[in-house]
């Protein structure tokens, strides 16, 4: 159905709130020049109307509980409801970050315990939980690398190496921290080109940002060699934790030679993605980097948990306060429920599911699999043959999947694969869901070769048909206020 904008549902005089009365009903004068005089066009609705509006909007949205959500690189695993229940405890919601430490021992203990888990899982020595998301973590990590080199009297190390298959946040974060970004190409096999890496490293090398398995879902099997090359050149190795779900409980970045790691609690540790956030992007480092971590860290003296601001060379803060605490709580609940075996099982099944899907789809006309066949937790097919032969693009395939009630994979990423379809089923979907997904992709292949228009015109059964993003960018309408103005001027016809 179509749900009007909340502004269109507004009727004068309706209210959706109650407020307590002020302690004293005295007039407090606001200086004339600061008093609000401009209009405040907020909607006016009652609570029942608001609840209906957002209930309907929610039903026009696809989440992990709606069905398979195999967005590659996003690890859209099931978000256990117990995480939410614990995160809803008053001891989470109603706690002020500046309370006396003696009144927040529970909160600090949760942060401290979470750090211990993450250390063992990654093979790192110390963690900050402050970053709000993966990219915030990346920025933290590369800022630490920068601080380390400066501290070592090597200000010339201003080049950050990044795989050409890397997430866009890697180069963006490096650039934000002041680095020049150098791309390292991949081989035909889909792994890092070691020769190119050898050629790229040097005195200006600050480090290499890598994810392993990489964004093709392929394990960089020469990772120890890569580490050696970078370390030998004086650079540090940065691990993008987006793909940790592939090796959780199996292999540790720390043992692969990484010096800095960021994790995504909302990917690997089952906290919900919230339609785009909040996430949480803890950063772990080897011992020699721990003095550069943001403040505060969480300490424990055997009796008492405390906030530790005594981090001599700290890069400072990458976010206010201590990070997304409510997200950390969820992740810790997950870890405690899963335990050692559970985490290992999770990775194993995630990898099994990705390979199962890969093998089942392999050989279907129109899709090809670039690089090695053995994948870890995700797989990347290319619809390049289909596009060449039928004109049907990866985007068309994605949109057609929506018609079957399925969420599309990530498309057009990694950039090194043309017409990429990046599929990550995760360990929490059933075999039947994967089978149905493969069936749908096969059917779309058939349609592409027999009746391509049905695919190109997709989706057909969704709340809206294919959305015109070119128009959106050409004629930006970014708020109700802008819409009303443009409508008035006759510049929009919708």
């Amino acid at each position, binding site marked *: 159905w179509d749900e009007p904008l909340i502004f269109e549902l*507004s009727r004068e005089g309706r*209210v959706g709130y109650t407020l307590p009365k002020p302690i004293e009903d005295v007039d407090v004068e606001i200086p004339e*020049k600061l008093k609000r005089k401009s209009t405040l066009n907020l909607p006016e609705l009652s609570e029942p109307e608001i609840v209906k509006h957002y209930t309907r909007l929610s039903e026009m949205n696809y989440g992990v509980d709606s069905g398979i959500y195999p967005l590659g690189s996003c690890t859209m695993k099931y978000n256990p409801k117990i995480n939410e229940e614990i995160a809803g405890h008053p*001891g989470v919601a109603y706690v002020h*970050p500046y309370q006396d430490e003696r009144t927040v021992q529970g909160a600090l203990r949760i942060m401290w315990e979470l750090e211990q888990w993450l250390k063992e*899982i990654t093979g790192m020595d110390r963690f900050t939980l402050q970053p709000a998301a993966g990219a915030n973590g990346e920025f933290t990590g590369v800022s630490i690398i920068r601080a380390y080199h400066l501290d070592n009297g090597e200000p010339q190390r201003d080049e950050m190496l990044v795989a050409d298959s890397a997430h866009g*946040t890697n180069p963006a974060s490096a650039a934000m921290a*002041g680095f020049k970004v150098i791309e390292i190409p991949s081989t035909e096999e889909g792994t890092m080109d070691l020769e190119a890496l050898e050629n790229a490293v040097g005195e200006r090398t600050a480090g290499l940002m890598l994810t392993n398995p990489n964004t093709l879902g392929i394990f960089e099997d020469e990772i120890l060699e890569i580490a050696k090359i970078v370390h030998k050149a004086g650079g540090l190795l940065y691990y993008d934790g987006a793909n940790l779900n592939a090796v959780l409980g199996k292999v540790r970045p720390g043992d692969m030679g990484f010096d800095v790691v960021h994790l995504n609690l909302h990917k690997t540790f089952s906290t919900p993605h919230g339609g785009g956030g909040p996430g949480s992007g803890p950063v772990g480092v080897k011992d020699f980097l721990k003095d550069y971590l943001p403040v505060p860290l969480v300490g424990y003296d055997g009796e008492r948990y405390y906030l530790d601001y005594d981090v001599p060379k700290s890069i400072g803060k990458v976010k206010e306060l201590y990070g997304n605490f409510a997200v950390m709580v969820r992740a810790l609940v997950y870890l405690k429920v899963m335990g050692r075996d559970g985490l290992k099982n999770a990775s194993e099944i995630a990898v099994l599911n990705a390979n199962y899907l890969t093998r089942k789809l392999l050989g279907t006309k129109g899709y090809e699999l670039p690089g090695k066949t053995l994948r870890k937790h995700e797989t990347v097919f290319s619809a390049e043959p289909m596009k060449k032969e039928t004109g049907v693009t990866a985007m068309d395939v994605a949109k057609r999947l929506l018609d079957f009630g399925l969420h599309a994979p990530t498309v057009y990423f990694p950039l090194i694969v043309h017409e990429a379809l990046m599929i990550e089923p995760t360990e929490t979907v059933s075999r039947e869901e994967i089978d149905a997904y493969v069936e749908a992709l096969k059917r779309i292949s058939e349609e592409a070769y027999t009746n391509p228009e049905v695919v190109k015109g997709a989706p057909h059964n969704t709340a809206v048909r294919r959305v015109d993003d070119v128009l959106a960018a050409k004629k930006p309408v970014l708020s*109700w206020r802008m819409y009303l103005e443009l409508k008035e001027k006759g510049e929009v016809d919708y």
Partner: protein
Amino acid sequence: MGKHYLPNLAQRDEMLKEIGFSSIDELFSDVPEGMVKEFNLPEGKSEYEVFLELNEVLSKNKTVLEMPSFLGAGTYFHYVPAHVKYLIERSEFLTAYTPYQPEISQGMLQALFEYQSMMAELYGLPVVNSSMYDWGTAIAEAALMTVRLHRGKRKRFVIPKAISPEKRAVIETYTRGANLEIVEVPWDENGQLDIENLKEAVENAAGVYVEMANFFGLVEENVKEIGEIAKEAGAYFVVGADPTMLGIFEAPGELGADIAVGEASYLGNPMNFGGPRAGVFAVRDDKKLIRQMPGRIIGMTKDADGKRAFVMTLQTREQHIRRAKATSNICSNEALVAVASAIHLASLGPKGLKELGEVILKNTAYLKRRLSEVAEIPFEGLYFKDVPARFGRPYGEIHEVLLARGIHGGYYIGEHFPELGETALFSATETTRKEWVDALIEALKEVA
């Protein structure tokens, strides 16, 4: 444990066989020999045991429901209406990701467009992104943006000295890579931004940042004038505002802001020991500004049938397309926090937001009046939420007494602002009860 989250664990062997593998290990055959290891971690537990354990741990926190709190200083105890919580916990919102597929994500897209639209109204600026991590990172991103707008030719960014130490630290870390010069303007004898000092600092500045109420809770009287000074010097004007002020205080856009920032989580979201939060980021409707904006933006457009629809737009600014040249590295943001604040705003409406502002203003006035009976208020002027109180003895001692009485006292700021002496910030919002304030003052009378 964790079997209950893993449907295919029971079908593992069948599935392996079906795709020609004989064991799970074979799937990991590309991992170098000896690298796979047994982790030293506890065994998994039943959901009930974890529930019991965490319930006990969290009960160790003394919440502001158990002990009246006067802590503010950038984090406030506002009441979150129950329907807001319920709605954002609906899993279609909660468990979705960034709406990459607009056709099946119209719900979240529209909710975020509505968030942008409501914040546009509050801040008086029509272009708002769908959230930054928090107010602090929003200022830092604004600083970087003003530098980009000057094509890197100006690298100075002016901020008030009376700013939260949290925000100050974030700005510093964020702008280090771009080699910004952060210049602080002190407060004058009334606690207001020192205009004369500003006039010097603004020279060659890329941007000037000011807050409508400063860290001490003091309402900044000369926002408009400060903006004029900034613009005259060719700097962009960035205004920070607590959204709960904006029902009664003029919109930053009307006061001359090119960019406005704030904290969306004050509406519709609990404190959560400091996070998650969500930064508001708003700019004028100016292509130049919009092109340099960080973060995700939702736009209205049409679908193939000409029907109204929503979509993420202007993505060419973003990291997944522009990579090292992006306007920011931000990817995951704080969408759900933003939606919660929008639902709260929609519930308040114009009348409610005004009433909320008034109740806070009046409660702050009451708190200030009562505090002035037992402490010195360093500056005269109008306060919103926070009130500084200077005591004649070390605040740490006072704090201990309050704590023993079951009161979360003020936030000591003497460490960050030694010139203010033994000063702590006490805060009031609409949640503050008269009996709490009275108990506080009674305790302070005995000890201070």
